[in-house]
């Protein structure tokens, strides 16, 4: 069974009298263990697609199967539970809780999940922090960490619930090129070592090239879906640092 299957997903925003179609028939399959990047210019609909894939939003029409489950029919509470158990998010602006230690930040998703002893959870969180290389920063607050470190805490947080898939929305958008490379390497490592499916949303070809597969989206349609050219991965441009995420079409 495929991890994600989209069939003819359409999304239309209603702005007053005007209907703005953002996604126009997206059909897509993502298998377990893939590392995919979703590329597109601002306003191409890639953020909307990611919100739908991440169960934050639902499609106007079409079907979305996540591990064989039809997601578009679920209520918002069921989707919240699905997000909690199966999906990890990494955001461009990290979104860590301020004035809260790295460890507590990582433990936060567990507040919405039943079961698991506190001690076992704590062990897992520590283990994850070690894996992202911040074992010595457990009690630091976000303001005491660099951008790259904050993003690594965010990655650890997204992994605490052992999700099937990780969505990264412009994960390097606020980072300099050197740190960006580190973060991308970490994604690649997680994908290679732990077979976690990762979907990176970006508008930069250099970053997209780190994935095994690049899906190009433009004006609400998939225009290209091909394996990446590994050579491009080493040519990370400094310009990526100033990148801004594409806004929702409006």
């Amino acid at each position, binding site marked *: 069974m495929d991890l994600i299957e989209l069939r003819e997903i359409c999304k239309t925003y209603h702005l007053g009298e005007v209907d703005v179609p953002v996604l126009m028939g997206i059909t897509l399959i993502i298998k377990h263990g893939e590392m995919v990047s979703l590329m597109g210019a601002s306003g191409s609909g890639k953020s909307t697609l990611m919100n739908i894939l991440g169960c934050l939003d639902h499609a106007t029409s079409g079907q979305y199967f996540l591990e064989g489950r039809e997601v578009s029919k679920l209520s918002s*509470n069921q989707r919240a539970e699905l997000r909690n158990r199966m999906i990890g998010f990494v955001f461009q602006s990290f979104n860590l809780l301020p004035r809260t230690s790295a460890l507590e930040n990582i433990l936060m*998703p567990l507040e919405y999940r039943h079961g698991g002893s506190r001690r076992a959870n704590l062990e897992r969180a520590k283990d994850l922090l070690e894996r992202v290389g911040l074992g010595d920063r457990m009690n630091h607050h976000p303001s005491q960490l660099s951008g790259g470190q904050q993003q690594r805490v965010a990655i650890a947080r997204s992994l605490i619930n052992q999700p099937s898939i990780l969505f990264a929305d412009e994960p390097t958008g606020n980072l300099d090129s050197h740190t960006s490379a580190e973060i991308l390497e970490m994604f690649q490592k997680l994908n290679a070592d732990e077979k976690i499916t990762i979907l990176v949303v970006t508008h930069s070809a250099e970053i997209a090239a780190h994935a095994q597969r690049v899906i190009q989206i433009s004006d609400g349609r998939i225009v290209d879906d091909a394996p990446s050219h590994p050579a491009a991965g080493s040519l990370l441009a400094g310009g990526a640092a100033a990148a801004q995420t594409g806004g929702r079409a409006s």
Partner: protein
Amino acid sequence: MMKFLRQIRTAMRAMGRNINRALLNMLGIVIGIAAVIAMMEVGQGASKAIERTISSMGSNTLLVLPGAAASGGISWGTGSSMTLTSADCEAVTRECPDVRQAAVLVRTSSQLIYGNRNWVPNTIYGTDPDYLEVREWQVMAEGEPFTARDVRSSNKVCVVGQTIKRELFQGESPVGKEIRLKNVNFKVLGVLTAKGANLMGMDQDDIVLAPWTTIKYRISNQKTTGQSSTAASSTSDAVNTLSNLYPTSQVALYPDLSTVQQADNPLPVRFTNVDQIILAARTAETIPNAMDQITSLLRERHHLRAGEDNDFQIRDMTELTKTLASTSAMMTNLLLVVALISLIVGGVGIMNIMLVSVTERTREIGLRMAIGARGRDILLQFLIEAVLLCLAGGLLGIGLGRGISSLVANVLHWPTAISLNAIGLSVVVSCAVGIIFGFYPAWRASRLDPIDALRYE
């Protein structure tokens, strides 16, 4: 249950993250509750003081009068029966639990003479020292009251009111001086504090109090011992003169006893009846009980059979009692209104700051939702935060309010009373305020769209 505990922990952690904000949040409710507690305590003290003032006017006072005697179909009116005794008074004090204090009264009216001045006081009461307590008049302006011992030995002592001091002594201290009352010399032991006019406009300071035994046996109107001097004058004045339009002294029907005859025939009867018993109930509420207790006790003591009429009457000060009741009801309502207003102010403050807090934490809410929090979880988290804040604020407020009221008590010397009701009420109310005023912001938070919330700047 576990889930709820976890929610509380989440809310605590969220508050702990920003202590300043939490404290500011609390401030509104702290001030609200403190105002309530302080108002209630100071107000209750004031209300107690007012009640005490009114009851010193005699709202708790009951009067027991002897009933009407009748002979041959002719009634002699209230107070003519001679069945009420000082022993009744003692028994009432001893055996009626709702009676705080009782005193006998023997009334007389006469001219007072001091030096070359004279004065007829409004009231001359023969009583016992408990009278001052019944009237809540214990504090003396000068000197001291007479004692139970003076009553036992019919000592010729008295205390006088402010008017007597002014009229008879022209403002000098009367303590230690002697005044004459029907040719008996009374030593003035003390001066009462000013009480002013009573509700009828009668000057209550125009009063002389003496041991009732002295008044009763030494100078009362009924002659218990013949007095040759007055008797002699009455016979000599029996001849009508033009100047004596209204003969005041009774014409003696029988020739007076000579001194020798008097010595041979002492009047054997010493009536121990008193004119009134004045008594104070413990509180205004216990007056009906006290009246029942007195009635049954006196009926028993006077050997009245069932069906026989009472040979006494009990009067209460209904008007005053009503005034007292309505005054305290008014005070209570006033305090309640003030308390409510300050709580609403505190609650609106909480709501405002919670709304600001929701706006400020939009991204956090978005993140929590993306990570798997349901709308309900967010609602509960903010609601618990609000309730915890209000509870903590309520506790702080109770402390602060107690502090304020004891400060008022110490600095302004106002009477304050701890109000357990107010404390219990404010704990309950602070929770309620938290839920009511925390609900709207929490509901707003729970309705946020995670996508918009995450993108909120």
